């Protein structure tokens, strides 16, 4: 018979029983400070539903974030500006950039969620 697999839950319970969890700190902040630029720490908290913007935004950072002129960083935009820009790309049927073609695949609700998530990540006003 296959060895019983550990689950996150029972490992955590075992560690708690052993008193190993004292002083547990926020995992996200620590790693974010370790490398520049670093992957964003995932923002979700336990037991919450999946944040749709967090999943949607995974695609964005494949191109954006390098600080080049050719591909702008979204950090310069607040949530409303991001949402407007993304919806404009979606609406401009004669647009020539990859963003025009990409945004047509996202619902307005997707765009709102990703704009909210990205702007929250960079600390601007949601």
């Amino acid at each position, binding site marked *: 018979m*296959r060895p*019983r*697999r*550990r*689950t*996150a*839950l029972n*490992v*955590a*319970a075992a*560690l*708690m029983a052993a008193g*190993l*969890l004292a002083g*547990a*700190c*926020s*995992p*996200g902040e620590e*790693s974010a400070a*370790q*490398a520049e*630029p*670093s*992957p964003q*720490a*995932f923002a*979700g*908290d*336990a*037991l*919450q*539903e*999946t944040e*749709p913007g*967090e*999943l*949607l935004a*995974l*695609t964005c*950072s*494949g*191109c*954006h*974030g*390098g600080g*080049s*002129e*050719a*591909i702008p960083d979204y950090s310069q935009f607040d949530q409303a500006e991001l949402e407007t820009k993304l919806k404009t790309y979606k609406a401009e049927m004669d647009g*020539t*950039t*990859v963003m025009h*073609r*990409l*945004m*047509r*695949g*996202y619902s307005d609700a*997707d765009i709102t969620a990703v704009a909210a998530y990205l702007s929250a990540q960079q600390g601007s006003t949601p």
Partner: protein
Amino acid sequence: MTWKPHRRGVLAGIGTASLSLLAAPAIAQAQPRIIIVGGGFGGAAAARFLKAGLPDARITLIEPQKRYIACPFSNLVIGGLRDMEAQTFGYEGLKAVDIDVVQDRAEDVDTTARRVTLGSGGTLSYDKLIMSPGIDIRWGALEGYDEAVQEAMPHAWKAGPQTTLLRDQLEAMQDGGLVVMSVPPAPFRCPPGPYERASLIANYLKTRKPASKLIILDAKDQFSKQPLFLEAWAKHYPDHLEWIGASDFGRVASVDPGAMTLSTDFDTYDADVANVIPPQKAGEIAERAGVADQTGWCPIDPLDFSSTLQPDIHVLGDATIAAPMPKSAFSANLQAKLCALQITRELRGQPLAPTVLANTCYSYVTPDAAVSITGVYSNEGGALSSIEGAGGLSPQGAAQSVRAAEAAQAAAWFDQITRQTFG
């Protein structure tokens, strides 16, 4: 019990008093052991994003090469427009965030004991294994093309010494020579890659060896970004590039490295330089781990890129069956981020939800002009599907300013994705 049930809320039956004790940091302290096999755009990105999401997990990357040579942009090296150094990345950025980088080959995987055997003979145990093994060549699948032939007829489909070899052969060729490229049937790594390479070889011939010519012998009639490549070739390389599709008997049936010939069903081509892009499969460790099926590629659940064949193993990148998502560095990097986030959420007891994914691939058609293909995909319902009305190609007949803008975006993309993957 597996980790999978967490998706559907294993914690639901636990009272609220217990829940408050199981805050996210507590679960993250469980120190799961996660092994990643392969240090490319999938594996290295997975390691970095898992470390970000699960800072207390023990993350080990197994990769035999000390330095990673990137395939994207390596066609510019072959075209004489870029140095190999610009393609080369180390693992210092992973080590700096406390990822254990084991420079060894993963030889085997025991999926029952959940253990990886290394080339050195040692073993490593995992709770989760992420495999991003890239491709291997199906030696012999094209008659005459076995492993020894890659020196005479380089494939250059894994960037590295093969890239340099093909570049050197092009440089050594006399003006007036014939370059022949063979393109296999799909699926293969980087669907537009052969045609970008052909463009940049033709550019080299046109500018440096103008009496020379490139012939592409293709096992297909349709290929990625076809109208854009055909437009660019007619405009820039009418005397230096000829594409012969399957309907015109372009499919190469056999090669003879001694005679330097490539034979289709009707013709034999004498090449001065032969670039044989051979049939491919998932990196060999995938087969040994039992995550590849009879096609040679790896079926996955696109929700989190978990293997549908083995428990506690995820597969990323070129090795996977993820169509319509292409075998690209962008895809591998995105799949890595998705997989890392889903594993993070799973270990925190959070449910997994489907999402929208996308891919963007640029191809150079001249040194200062590029074209792109994009796709947008849903991973809902157990399969990836293209979202209708989205994605597609750069406009045909566009001004050079549009092509130049995409060339600049391609360069910015490369900088960003390599920084994000390797640190």
